[in-house]
């Protein structure tokens, strides 16, 4: 693997993003010690239930968290051909975390200092090196500006095509590339005149027009019809093989992840519980998986299950309340694979992410001893 020689494109290490729940006087640990890697020309899928912190992790990478205290620690190393940077470089001096018994009690954060320093780092990267597409594409385009104008604005900002004629040509090229029909007509359309699928295509065109090194796709198919979803995935698959762009793909839809991702990270309760190649993580063999991944996969309706008229499996209980994180395994309360021997450990000690096979890590006591 190239990752062994050159550093990976994106290396998130122990990222922590907390929010403050004023009514409960406590911290919501939206992202709590996430470590991830995205290699060059690789698509990493992040999957998990709503509230597992996957979108917040992506927003943290982009530096888009505005609620307090937000990102409080970790490192995000970005290394493209053009730029090598730690996106959180020197930001730790704006945060002081007081911990007791390994639990965060008080966070002092100089928000404006952090914001300014973060802007200085991210300002030149956003849109240029790291682009992002969002869920609900219609809301992500400014309703008062034509699609073409928004696209040319992005192109003029990030590429060498500065003249109106060049940037318009480039914009039309990208509209064509993302397979919007009659691009010349759509160029002058307002977003409200386009369907959700077309808006997402336009968003993808905007994101890719600057030829970024990393694309963060935050639930790119959410809010679209099923047929359009599959077409958007087709498009992303095609663009991925054509441009070889690295993607951090956030989705709760396992079918989307399985079609696009090379590697998969499964998140639960703000932490990665399983991380490995897509074949292993999403494969058939449940015995080498984290119980949460196994339960997630079992709850996806398959053709076989539908034919057999099997009841759809569910995971009992609710998503972890990240205000009161238990001392033990975060999935313990919902886990159906606890054996009497490890029960004690599961309840009291938080397992580490441990490599059980080359390139396959699982955070579960079943594999830890």
């Amino acid at each position, binding site marked *: 693997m190239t990752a062994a020689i050159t550093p990976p494109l994106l290396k998130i290490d122990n990222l922590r993003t907390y929010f403050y729940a004023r009514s409960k006087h406590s911290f919501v640990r939206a992202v709590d010690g996430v470590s991830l890697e995205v290699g060059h020309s690789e698509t990493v899928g992040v999957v998990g239930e709503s509230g597992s912190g996957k979108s917040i992790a992506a927003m943290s990478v982009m530096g*888009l968290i505005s609620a307090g205290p937000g990102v409080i620690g970790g490192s995000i190393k970005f290394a493209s051909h053009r730029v090598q940077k730690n996106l959180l470089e020197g930001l730790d001096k704006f945060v002081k975390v007081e911990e007791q018994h390994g639990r965060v009690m008080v966070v002092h954060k100089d928000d404006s200092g952090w914001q300014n320093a973060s802007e200085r780092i991210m300002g030149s990267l956003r849109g240029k090196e790291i682009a992002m597409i969002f869920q609900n594409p219609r809301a992500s*385009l400014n*309703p008062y500006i034509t699609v073409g104008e928004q696209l040319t604005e992005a192109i003029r900002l990030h590429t060498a095509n500065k003249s109106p004629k060049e940037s318009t040509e480039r914009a039309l090229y990208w509209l064509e590339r993302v397979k919007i029909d*009659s691009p010349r007509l759509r160029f002058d359309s307002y977003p*409200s005149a386009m369907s959700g699928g077309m808006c997402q295509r336009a968003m993808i065109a905007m994101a890719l027009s*600057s030829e970024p090194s990393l694309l963060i796709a935050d639930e790119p198919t959410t809010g679209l019809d099923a047929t359009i979803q599959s077409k958007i995935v087709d498009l992303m698959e095609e663009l991925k093989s054509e441009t070889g762009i690295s993607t951090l793909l956030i989705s709760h839809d396992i079918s989307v992840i399985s079609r696009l991702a090379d590697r998969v990270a499964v998140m639960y309760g703000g932490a990665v519980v399983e991380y490995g190649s897509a074949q292993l993580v999403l494969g058939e063999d449940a015995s080498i998986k984290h119980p949460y991944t196994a339960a997630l996969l079992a709850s996806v309706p398959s053709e076989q299950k539908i034919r057999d008229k099997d009841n759809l499996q569910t995971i009992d209980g609710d998503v972890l309340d990240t205000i009161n994180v238990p001392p033990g395994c975060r999935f313990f309360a919902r886990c159906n694979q606890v054996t009497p021997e490890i029960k004690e450990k599961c309840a009291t000690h938080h397992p580490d992410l441990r490599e059980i096979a080359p390139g396959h890590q699982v955070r579960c006591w079943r594999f830890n001893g």
Partner: protein
Amino acid sequence: MKKYTQTSGEIGDFSQLPIWQKYALVDLLYVAYGLLIVALVLVSYVLGMFNLLPHDPQQINIELLMASPLSDGYLLGTDFLGRDILSRLIMGIQAYFLPGLLAISISLIVGVVLGVLSGYRGGRIETVIVYFTNLIDSFPRLVLILLVIAAFKPDIYYIMIVMGITGIPTVTTAIANKIRFLAQKSFIEAAIALGLRTRVIIMKHILWYNCRALLIIQATLGMGEAILLETSLSYLGFGVQEPVSSWGNMVQSGANYFLQGNFWPSTAPALAILFTILGFNLLGDGLNNILEDRRGR
């Protein structure tokens, strides 16, 4: 009635439609009338500036007191001193045009700056700005103006500066609310993610594209209000003083002869006030509808 048009086999392009098919007729009429009035005011202002008038507006003519319209080269007749009403009407625009512009510039510029600061920054700055706008709002405008007149002198520029300042809170609140509302929208977040500078997002994406209708409305309403204020103060004798003409003091001086049957010298400036203010307000209304409408297409 809804109208659907298709130009050819392809789907038609809305932007290629002629303008009268794009927008509602009534809005276009409003705008057309408003623009006509604005053009008239502008032309008259320039004419007045260079003194290109049919007669000297302050030239008294004892032989022709209270001449009716269309007599002897006096298109709109003369007043109780035999002065040409048309020339005085044109000169009357000098009384409110620049001061009115000054008033709306003050309220728009200061209002937008404060609105952006309080809407985008929030925090302590916002609290200070809210106190400031509340403070201004708590004074009745007319009392403030009379205070200034009493303290300094009845100069129309002082009056309009006060008017501009008292207009700040409306603009500030409207802009701040709009920004606060828009800042949560995902398209602003997407614009940040696209790498656009905060300045560009505020100036272009928020102010220009999302607030221009609001600003145009405020500007045209403000101009209408400035005219009304200037004319009413001049009518009361606090604004522009005789012999310099203002539509307000023309109505006032003509009113003395109104019941004697010479209704014209006061009616002409009164109608001018009516149609001009109507023009500015309808212009704002029509432009607002047309600009807002584009989103819905």
